[in-house]
């Protein structure tokens, strides 16, 4: 008990930074992949971006404390994901609607009746949302419009649109919990 194990020094020597980053990455890999998967909707791309973020982290001149590193990891990954989405859109020259449609439809693991049932569940849940809330939710989550874009289209504040989408997500969570139970 002579050396405190759990508290890392705020500015560590560069020598052990690599090990610490590896540990950090291991500890957060799963969370990071989930995080990226939500953005990219492709497990493969999520893995590629996570790896790229890891490399960037190792290239840092002076890595800070663990809290900072964690935040940096996710922020870097988020930025890389945005870049990837943008270039993908440019490259493939497909409109957003089709892009999202394709991405969403491709990795469906289930087939037949179960998938059909699941789809009708999801559609009916979305249909239950109050109209303005549904508009914001669909535009933001399915058409890939930013909150600002949705806000402009609806003539509402960005804050209001954010609230609508949050409420919609929570409602979906409650409904899906009920469906699964």
């Amino acid at each position, binding site marked *: 008990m002579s050396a405190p194990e759990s508290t890392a020094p705020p500015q560590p020597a560069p020598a052990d930074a690599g090990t610490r980053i590896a540990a950090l990455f291991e500890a957060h890999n799963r*969370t990071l992949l*989930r*995080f990226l*998967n*939500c*953005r990219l*909707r492709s497990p493969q791309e999520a893995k590629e971006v996570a790896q790229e973020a890891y490399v960037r982290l190792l290239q840092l001149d002076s890595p800070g404390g663990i*809290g*900072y590193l*964690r*935040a*940096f990891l*996710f*922020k870097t990954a*988020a930025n890389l994901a*945005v870049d990837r989405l943008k270039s993908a859109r440019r490259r493939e020259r497909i409109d957003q*609607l089709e892009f*999202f*449609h394709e991405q*969403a439809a491709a990795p469906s693991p289930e087939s037949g009746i179960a998938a059909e049932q*699941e*789809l009708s569940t*999801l*559609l009916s849940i*979305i*249909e*239950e*949302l*109050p*109209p*303005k*809330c*549904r*508009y914001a939710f*669909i535009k933001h*989550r*399915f*058409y890939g419009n*930013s*909150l600002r874009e949705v806000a402009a289209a*609806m003539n509402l504040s960005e*804050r*209001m649109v*954010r*609230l*609508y*989408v*949050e*409420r919609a*997500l*929570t*409602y*979906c*969570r*409650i409904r*899906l*919990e*009920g*469906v699964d*139970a």
Partner: protein
Amino acid sequence: MRNLESMKDIPQTTSDQAASWFLRLQEETQVEAVFVDWQHWLTASSEHRLAYEKIEDVALRMRTAPASMLRLPSALEMLNDDYDGSQPIAEWKQGLAGSIRQRPATAHRLRYAAAAGLILTLGLGSWLGARHMNFPADSVAVYRAAAWQQQTIALPDGSRVTLDAGSILKTRLTSRQRLLQLDRGEAYFEVARDARPFSVSAGITQVTALGTAFNVKLNGERTIVAVIEGKVSVTATAPLAEAADDTGAGSSGSAAPNLIAGLKDTRRLSTQLSAGEAVSYGADSGFDAIPSEQASLATGWLSGRRQYRNEPLRNVLADVDRYTGRHTEITDSAAGELKFTGTLNLHNSAAWLQGLSVALPVRVTEDDTGTLIVEMAH
């Protein structure tokens, strides 16, 4: 402080916070501080992490629906939409259902306006130990009858509840049971026959029935149950021994030993009641049978006339408060123990208060805050 900006607007429940963080992080441009704050929040407790993962799962799962199959609302629909996001959607929807349900005002007695409505739904997962809301099979609601107004409630199972003015009732109907909880006041239950047991929790008492009619009243420290039709079982949900400790006797276990003896095995106490019978239960003395001539008065309130026989004034004043929506304070305990025999009318309970000093040796005054003060007249 760097936390202030990004934490601003983050709502209360963990689940709401998770949804809020999720959206924040989905936005394209975010400063580093947001990620730092998010990590603080995420690693603060495993509950946070689980809530966050849950929202991630939901978002991914919802996304599997193709955008082309979603119906965007029309401009007219959006124009007529009054949902403003200030409450959770499920709660808001239940509110709508409540206002539709109240439309037929069956006012065959007095003016039982249906103004009091459904206030809160869902988010009640914790009461009665419900962990998951079985939506939409579960139907959960809270009814509050306004002052001056009794409210009749038609439950989805066909049962009817008449809620006395100022009373509060929670209901939860699942595929297996019908659970109700009387939080304030008094209610009369006409239970539709159904395989699911119908249980009413009131204070430290639980009443269970299959198909019958009965009345439950929270009366000070005691709960009174009267059966009009059929049979019910009444169970004490807090054993006497514990309740006796709560009253601060200090010497635990020594209070009312003769009564506790019967509870040692089960920690529960229950009794069966048939039509025309009534019982009261309190932590101090357990079950007391109520004489039949008094039991017959139990439902007088349904016609707006509440009759009392030797009732402690404090209990009568609790009823008056529910009717008037005001607060009466008994500043001297002797006044609270005075026995009242007589009638209280729903619609003249304000006048009743003014006339109280004629019936009993008390003085009724009003202080600056509008609270009514009742004390012994000397």
